[in-house]
């Protein structure tokens, strides 16, 4: 009885220490649990893989640094896949705080594949307006973005000679941590311009995306860090990249965090029922 009462009143700092240690341990000494790619990640991978070389894919960076550990690995994995397939990558963002993250990816990833800014990758930056931005890009990208994120006129970038409007782009991959995000791309780019839309979302918002996936409106879904890890594995298995896989490395930590939360819930429930029964 004493034990159950103690368990119910356990100091939250003890829980924090247990969780902290279990999350950190696999980062220091990986458990190598491995990641198996699911059908949703494979659908997106196959859709991007099927885009003919030389074509452009659009990646919308709609997240901020708070979701960076979960979503940034998706961005790098998809960019590596695209460059390995000789696709061009057009980056834009509906979140102003995501611009710095897209800039980081646009600066760091292309050199790994010998790709050049302006020829193989362009970052448009952020513009206010969300739906008006997407609809405007559907008619003429240069009307919405006369210059790119770095202030260069779009007319001066060779890649933009072949990409005038959304219809010139076969697929958009929207990485979203909330609103605005993939739903806006579905609503305007997919329904009006017939673009295929794939999405990468945080694990907590994945359930919201499932109906679009089942209805066929969405082409593939990467859900949370696991989704990023699945895509990283697909890209490496196909021989497109040998880079470090941050999402795969973090999955061991996430596994242990989930297990410890489940154990805590079980212990908490046992203690609750034991004290309630005896107290009744």
């Amino acid at each position: 009885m004493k034990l159950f009462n103690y368990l119910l009143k356990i100091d939250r700092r003890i829980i924090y220490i247990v969780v902290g240690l279990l999350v950190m341990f696999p980062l220091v000494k990986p458990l190598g649990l491995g990641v198996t790619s699911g059908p949703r990640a494979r659908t997106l991978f196959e859709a991007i893989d099927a885009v003919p070389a030389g074509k452009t894919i659009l990646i919308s960076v709609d997240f901020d640094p708070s979701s960076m550990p979960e979503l940034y690995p998706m961005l790098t994995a998809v960019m590596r896949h695209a460059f390995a397939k000789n696709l061009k990558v057009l980056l834009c963002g509906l979140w102003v705080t995501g611009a710095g993250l897209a800039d980081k990816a646009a600066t760091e990833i292309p050199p790994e594949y010998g790709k050049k800014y302006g020829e193989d990758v362009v970052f448009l930056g952020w513009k206010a307006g969300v739906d008006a931005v997407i609809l405007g890009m559907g008619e003429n990208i240069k009307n919405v973005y006369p210059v790119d994120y770095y202030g260069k006129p779009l007319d001066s970038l060779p890649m933009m000679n072949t990409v005038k409007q959304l219809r010139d782009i076969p697929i958009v991959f929207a990485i979203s941590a909330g609103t605005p995000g993939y739903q806006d791309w579905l609503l305007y780019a997919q329904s009006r311009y017939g673009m295929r839309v794939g999405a990468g979302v945080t694990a907590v918002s994945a359930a919201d995306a499932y109906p679009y996936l089942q209805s066929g409106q969405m082409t593939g879904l990467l859900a949370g860090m696991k989704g990023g890890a699945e895509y990283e594995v697909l890209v490496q298995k196909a021989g497109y990249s040998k880079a470090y896989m941050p999402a795969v490395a973090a999955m061991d930590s996430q596994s242990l965090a989930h297990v410890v939360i489940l154990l805590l819930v079980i212990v908490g429930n046992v203690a609750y029922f034991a004290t309630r029964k005896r107290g009744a």
Partner: protein
Amino acid sequence: MKRSIPLAICLIMGIAMMIQFFVPHPASVAFYDLTTKWVRIVAAFALVLGTGSLVMYHVDKLQRRRRGWYYSIVTLTAAAATSVIGLGWGVRPGSPLQDIIFSNLLVPLNSSMFAILAFYMASAAYRAFRARTKEAALLLVAAFVVMLGMVPIGANVPFFWFLVVMAGALIVAGLVTRSKALFIGTGALVVGLLVWLAFSGFKVPRLMLPDTAEWVLSVPNMAAKRAILFGIALGGIATSLKVILGIERGWLGGGKQ
């Protein structure tokens, strides 16, 4: 007049945009192109309004010394510093806004905020996630299935063995708590497992934990989500019509005619 003109603009533009969607004529496309430009300009003004509203709210909080007023100093100082640096040195890569404010302040602060959620969630789950009712118990089991099924550690676990472990845990919990409800629930689970085993020819059924998690997400979750989405969509259409036709006038704000 203050109300009639905005209402008339709303009615005309609402109907015009609805008709425009179905008319592919060049004049219609040009009109659409023009209006999307207007929307982008209006959206930029909304940022000014938002900033003004934020400043007014926090200045008022400071003046009235309301609870947590000192946090308003942080908010206002951060907003002012960011604005001055952005306006003074620009927002391009390499500027102090990008290097100091974004990379060295916003990224680590935001990441830290998100990272500590794991600790709060663990603590909150321990304290609040109780099987107090049948519905809560069902939610608990579904959460267990999805949480384990979605991480590599649960990838190779058969659902049958997961349920056996659950039954074992329930038996221990029943012995400890001597709860009649727990014994009945455990008994039903054990009988169900035996029936399932018999139907599988006394071989462990092949259904894996990730498949079950997938089913939870794809069937019951999706049914609920879809119902919510339909409700939101129908509500959105109804509200839009009410706004266009001038029945709903809340967007005009208060004030006299």
